[in-house]
Each structure stands twice: as structure tokens, then as C-alpha cells.
């Protein structure tokens, strides 16, 4: 999405909710810097340029899936969580309570259990995503995660030990957003691949974190 300013690169965001009847989509945006601050100032009725949806999303959720969201990583997982009614659990984690931005009501979905954790214990369990996950991994149908790199690296470690199928939605700085410039490359076992076109969702075992 272009923040409507000239001389600024577009900003990538996940679809948070989509209403196929009305054609409306919602985004959940954490104010991080210049672009998201400008977007936050936008008033209703203003039109923004938006290109999408881009790239490849998550596969279908098997029953007993675990969804692991770190911070703003909640956006694509909330969308994923709403795609089925099968029993599934969302592990929603952040540094502290103010980074758990997703409204409770949006996570009040049939069949979905929600567990929260914060590093400082200001909401939910005191601990990390890895702590929550370790206790639940054995019976998981599959794991879907989105969040900061160190969290994903920890998730990968736990899941590979437990041999559970795992999918990551990755973030990388982008320029074109459509697959042309190879600016958003991430290291994978198949070489550098484009988050915007080949991803953002990749099988966890393909992602190399120290590359």
C-alpha cells in the first residue's frame, strides 16, 4: 500500500479480514514509522492506492492446528483463523500488553481457543511464544506462525524436533512488491526467494534464519 506520499516506497500489509459479500477488506496496522504513521492519520473517505492480493498465502488448516502470532504477526493469522471452524488454537504473544493490538472480539470465533503470553507478564502468561508452543506441540495438526525472526527461529526448532508440519509467513523489506526486483529476498534451502511473490508463506523447513 502506498501511503499517498510521493517519493515513498509502498508498504506491505497482510489481509486481516475480508468480507466476500461486501468486497470490503480490513487491515490491522501497527504504527512503526513514517509510512504507518501517515496511514494512521488518514481520514475516512480518503482513497489510497493498493495493489494486491500478492504472493502465496497459507494452505488450508488441518484440525488441531496451532497458530503462533508475534506482535503485528497477528494480522495474517487472524485471517487464517477465520477460514475454518475446525478446532484450532491461537498462541498470541508480544513484548507487553500494549503490543497485543488485536481486539478480543475479532478473535471470538467458533472453535478457536486463544492463549496469550507477554514477555513481561503484563497480559496472559509471562513468557514467550516458544514457552506456550512447547507445551502444546505434541498433539498439533500443523503449526502456522508469523512474527519476528527470533520467534520464528525458536518455533522452527521446536516444530522440527516434534516433526510437525509448519508454515511461516515472512517479512522482508520490499521495493516493487510484485516479484520483479528481487529486493525482498530471504535465504531458503532453494536459494534466495522473493517474499512478495514466492511467499510470504514458506514451509518452515525451507527457511534459513542465519543466511
Amino acid at each position, binding site marked *: 500500500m502506498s501511503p499517498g506520499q510521493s517519493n515513498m516506497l509502498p508498504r506491505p500489509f497482510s489481509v486481516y479480514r475480508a468480507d466476500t459479500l461486501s468486497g470490503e477488506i480490513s487491515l490491522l496496522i501497527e504504527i512503526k514509522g513514517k509510512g504507518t504513521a501517515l496511514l494512521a492519520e488518514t481520514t475516512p473517505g480518503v482513497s489510497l492506492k493498493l495493489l494486491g492480493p500478492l504472493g502465496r498465502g497459507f494452505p488450508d488448516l488441518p484440525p488441531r492446528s496451532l497458530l503462533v502470532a508475534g506482535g503485528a504477526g497477528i494480522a495474517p493469522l487472524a485471517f487464517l483463523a477465520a477460514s475454518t471452524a475446525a478446532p484450532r488454537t491461537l498462541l498470541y504473544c508480544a513484548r507487553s500488553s500494549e503490543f497485543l493490538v488485536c481486539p478480543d472480539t475479532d478473535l471470538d470465533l467458533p472453535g478457536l481457543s486463544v492463549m496469550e503470553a507477554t514477555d513481561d507478564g503484563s497480559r496472559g502468561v509471562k513468557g514467550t511464544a516458544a514457552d506456550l508452543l512447547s507445551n502444546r506441540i505434541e498433539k498439533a495438526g500443523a503449526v502456522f506462525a508469523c512474527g519476528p525472526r527470533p520467534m520464528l527461529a525458536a518455533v522452527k526448532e521446536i516444530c522440527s524436533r516434534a516433526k510437525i508440519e509448519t508454515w511461516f509467513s515472512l517479512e522482508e523489506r520490499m521495493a516493487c512488491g510484485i516479484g520483479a526486483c528481487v*529486493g525482498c529476498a530471504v535465504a531458503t534451502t532453494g536459494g*534466495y526467494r522473493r517474499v512478495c511473490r514466492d511467499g510470504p508463506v514458506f514451509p518452515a523447513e525451507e527457511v534459513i534464519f542465519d543466511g
Partner: protein
Amino acid sequence: MAEKIFEPDLRVDLAGIALENPILAASGPFGYGHEYRELTGFKDLGGIIVKGVSLEPWAGNPPPRVAETPSGMLNAIGLQNPGLKSFLEEDLPRLRGPGPRLLVNVVGCTVEEYAGVASGLEGVEGIDGLELNISCPNVKAGGMAFGTDPAATGRVVAAVRRKTSLPFLVKLSPNVADIGAVARSAEEAGADGISLINTISGMLIDTAHKKPLLGNIFGGLSGPAVMPVALRMAWQVAEVVKIPVLGIGGITTADDALQFIMAGARAVAVGTGLFYDPHLPSQIKTGLLEYMKKEGLKNLHEIEGAARP
């Protein structure tokens, strides 16, 4: 009194390549064109310069590879590309056909590699010209780019000249003290045109993590921030060479394009601007036509170099 009505003619001849209009997609941002074709159908582009092609596949640099800067961006893609063979087999067939003229950006680490890519493209259908990217590391000279040394530039240009019958431009690096000397050297060695500028070396630091923002430490600065530097170099080069100049660097509006043409450029290419808006070339074309109508210009040659004393 009926005013004479005429449609301005945007066609230009760039080093023997006949362009429908003087607006090209710069090498790199446009990739091999497939994604932009889906998005904009190559609309209103006079030419496209595909991403650098090397003899063998290049892996590219570690991420992060791009960063935003005030009115610009840094990139350190590292010329990731699938190599000549894959370009010819996978990409080129999808680019052939009517539409913008096609130029291939050629990269290498040695004179032999440049010459090898040029040989491999010789006689291949659908290619209208080459653009030699001499900002690449010259491994024999310790990694300084070919383009920072007039003599090395001459050698690589002469080697490519021997291998190709296609018109070719030499794309200069701005990271030099005397751009005119490099341009003259390229002209003397047989180049058909000069394109400039490539990106200016720069970096940013992520203070939260106390390390360079880009995986490669250094990247290339591009976008509107660099336009005054690019325009100055286009002016200086147009002064010392007779072959045509393709102006590149920070162009996002018709007025920017006109500045390059009035400085002496024959045509312009848009890189970073495509990220801001993939439809920028169409907007620039519309703006140029409006300007020409207002000023009563029949073609752009009338104002080529018009700002020069």
C-alpha cells in the same frame, strides 16, 4: 483563423534503436518484465532494459537488500540473476513480439565475461540492443568497478564491440571524480551511446541493532534524491561525447524528463519511480505530449540540449 493542429512526434533514435517514445524502464527495478507486463501491459514505454544478465547464474547479496531513504532508496540486490542460458530459454521467449524495444543489461566480473554474454546474445531474435553495466566489480583490479577507470572501461567496451553487431550503450557509474573521462573512453572504444547514472554508493545503519541496515553493508542510492547529481553528469557527458545519452536517475515527472533532454539527453529511463507508481511512464508520456503541444514542438530534438549555453 484556424490554428494548425498537429500531434507531436515522440519518436527518437537512441544509438540506432528506434523508440516509439523516449521513456524506458531502467535495468533492475523492472526485472525481466514479466510482472510489469501483467500489471501495466508495457503501456507507453518506448523501451525496456531488462535486469543485468551474467554468463553464469549469480546468487545475489544477503538480505535485507533494500531500504528507504529520504526521497530515495538503497539497494544491494547484488545482481542476482539466473545467468545467460536461463535468460535465453526462460525469459526472452516471453518478451519477444510487438511492444517496446528490448535492451539487455550485461554484467560481468572480467572482460571475458562481458564479451561472453555479448557473444551469447549476438544474432538472437528479439533483442534490439545492449546496455553494458560497467559498475560491476572488476575482479582483476581488486574489485573496484570497471567504470571508475577510463582505461578499464575502454578495454571492456572494445571487447564487447568485437563480439556484437547490436547497438550498445555503456552505463556509467557516478562514483567517479571525472565522468567525462570515462564517457570519452567508452565512445573511443566503440560504444554507440552512454547511459547514466547507475546508483551512488551509500549505506544506512540500524541504530537499534547497531549494525548496517543492508546485509551487504553498502548499497546503491537511487530515486529523486539523486536527480541533481544524475542531471549534472548527463550535462557533463553530453558536452564531451557525440554519441547519444540516455538519462537515468530520480526521474518521476515529465518536468524531470524534460530537464534531462534539455541537458542534452536523447531519452530517459525510470527505475525507482516504478516502485512509487508502476504507471509513472504513462504519466510522463502524457506530460511530455502536453508540454510539446503547449510549446508547439513537433519533436523532442528541437529541445535536446536546449538549456546549454
